[in-house]
């Protein structure tokens, strides 16, 4: 039976959680990984592995992905959630602290012929830095306007 878009995406996520080295079962060789500022743009599977997957694993160990909701519409799927991980390698100039941190993310995937062809991503690097004691917005973030953080707001660390 042909796999659904979401099944393909879920299998890929489980493989990444297991830190499977070869991801070619899930991604086309020339897939595009396009993320927010600070994370970059990876053209193709090799670049994704070299310039995202490996440095991410180097900085953050014992990763657990807590995805809160998945959505599927045709050949697109999307999800949001956070990764819980241990800061065990240097991250953006900050030496390992051993802290357990939460890394919020949103992902969109476009699937073609059973594999991911495009991955649009937001990973909240400023949230990581904030948990490591560094406010990149130097007090000017709009979270300073908030009354109180919402309950169960997985994406918010205000």
């Amino acid at each position, binding site marked *: 039976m042909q796999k659904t878009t*979401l099944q393909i995406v879920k299998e890929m996520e489980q493989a990444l959680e297991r*830190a499977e080295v070869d991801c070619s079962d899930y991604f086309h060789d020339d897939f595009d990984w396009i993320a*927010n*500022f*600070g*994370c*970059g*743009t*990876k053209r193709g599977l090799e*670049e994704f592995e*070299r*310039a*995202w997957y*490996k*440095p991410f*694993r*180097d900085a953050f*160990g014992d990763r657990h992905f807590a995805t809160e*909701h*998945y*959505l*599927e*519409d045709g050949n*697109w799927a*999307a999800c*949001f959630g956070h990764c819980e991980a241990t800061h065990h*390698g*240097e991250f*953006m*100039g900050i030496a390992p602290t051993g802290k357990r941190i939460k890394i*919020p993310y*949103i992902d*969109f995937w*476009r699937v073609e012929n059973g594999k991911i062809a495009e991955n*649009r991503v*937001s990973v*909240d*690097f*400023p*949230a990581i830095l*904030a948990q490591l004691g560094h406010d*990149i*917005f*130097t007090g*000017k*973030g*709009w*979270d*300073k*306007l*908030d*009354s*109180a*953080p*919402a309950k169960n707001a*997985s*994406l*918010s*660390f*205000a």
Partner: protein
Amino acid sequence: MTTMNKTRPEQAILSRDTDISKTDETKAVIEGMVDGLNDHRITDIGEFFSDGFKWMGNTGCGTKNGLKEFQENWQKPFQAAFSEKVCIDEARLYMGEWAAAFGRQEAIHSGTFMGIEPTGKKVEIRYMDFWKVVNGKIIDNWVMVDFPHVVAQLGQDLFNGEGWETYDRGEKEPPRPEN
């Protein structure tokens, strides 16, 4: 059929909490809301959002509890910093009570933003959204708006050269994990 399959595998586990019959209603609310925001409506935007809705943004954007905080602590500062805003979804997905989109807002930097005086520059403000719609109104909105990218377009790097784009451009060699 000669045999009965007693233990059929459970189907559609990932979407079992989603009421697919609600997809059309969700679509109507989200489309109306996007048009409403593009028309710069603030005071009557409650047509699309429930009073107690939660807007949960990424670091630098914050969490807005309820419509009033969304208007006061998101819409107003946004309109103070940016004008002539146009919102363009690049992909939009619907599934039951849920919708998701990513895209960009194009706007003019016409007011102070993160301490940067107005430059008059046209900027791209990239975003990703997840919405949950119940009884015709948005009750939850999870959001990531790329403020560091906006600041970069105004000439400042909030990551001080530590962004992983340096790996993409070959300016730095990424580490290789042992695990």
